[in-house]
């Protein structure tokens, strides 16, 4: 798990988010029960992928540099590329249930707007089945995962196999994030 920070031009990006959300017919829930409550996602629509937007190119250049560093630590020799990306909007009570990003090497989640009580990221220990038979209180917490606090402009990177979720947004303001799947060339 790696943490970074990027100063987003929040107003410009959120204006574009709002435009996409209002014009796109399928800005909606994604997956089979992954999302609950007031949530919208552009994951259903490959025409609105943030990594193709000119205004986000400095961010994606930065993402690829960080990904290269992470892949080096992971002993992955080939250069990274962006496989796909999407935006999620969480209204009050909106939740993203536990899930993984299949067929992906690295996930980057960037927090464009996180209001107070907007909900944190939750990560489940990938060794949960190993710990399960041990008499540890961690096994109780492991059902729900470990809380990773997030704030506006945070960027969190983690392996595609890590099961994760999002706490419900308890705020009257939207929580906006960009999710990006990153892979290495040659796989």
């Amino acid at each position, binding site marked *: 798990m790696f943490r970074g920070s990027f100063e987003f031009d929040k107003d410009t990006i959120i204006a574009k988010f709002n435009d996409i959300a209002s014009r796109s017919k399928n800005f909606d829930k994604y997956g089979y029960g992954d999302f609950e409550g007031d949530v919208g996602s552009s994951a259903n629509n490959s025409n609105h992928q943030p990594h193709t937007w000119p205004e986000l190119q400095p961010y994606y250049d930065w993402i690829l540099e960080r990904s290269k560093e992470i892949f080096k630590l992971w002993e*992955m020799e080939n250069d990274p590329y962006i496989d796909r990306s999407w935006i999620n909007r969480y209204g009050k009570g909106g939740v993203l249930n536990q899930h993984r990003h299949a067929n992906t090497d690295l996930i980057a989640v960037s927090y464009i707007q996180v209001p107070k009580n907007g909900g944190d990221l939750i990560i489940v220990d*990938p060794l949960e089945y190993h710990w399960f038979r*041990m*008499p*540890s209180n961690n096994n109780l917490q492991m059902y729900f995962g470990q809380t990773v606090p997030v704030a506006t402009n945070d960027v969190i990177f983690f392996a595609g*196999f890590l099961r994760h979720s999002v706490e419900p947004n308890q705020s009257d303001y939207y929580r906006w994030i960009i999710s990006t799947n990153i892979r290495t060339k040659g796989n």
Partner: protein
Amino acid sequence: MFEGEYEFDRTALIPQLEALSDSPKFGNYGNMLEVGDAGSTAHDYVNQPHLLMPEFTKWALDRASEIFNLWRMQTTKAHVVRSWVNRHRKGGWTNFHTHPNTDLVVAAYIQVPKNGGNLLIIDPLENHWFGMPTTRNISEQTGKPYPTMNDKVYFFAPFIRHATEASNSDRDRWVMSMNINCERLF
């Protein structure tokens, strides 16, 4: 994975371990676990080596309690389930294995000659990494070497698959293994 150091009295201890290895129960444990000139007292449930080392056992149990606290176990009260010693002579090694039904493994390196062989550890996330295009998956087949030397003590979770490298020394390599559990509340 945790590591510590304990100063063993080899002069007093090794003759006692040699006496344990004279038992007819000394030999290969499990199905081809020890290979070549290697043997274990793991079949001998009576003459367990930790009984010869009460001070070390107390030290190891104190460390185990600290680890159980970090792991948020039900209790931090630790006790030895069982112990044994392995002797590796030139060319001998112990194959990859785990320690079932145990909370914590202790490997105490009482005597490690030069070129006596390292401890090899397999990443417990190996199957998660397997689908990724990383050269880790090649080194993962044979494990990551952890250096061993006189008085080194490793503590690790029982589900971690581990082995020893073959000893390339003419002198004996003596390792004591201990399985430690925490007291159950239910």
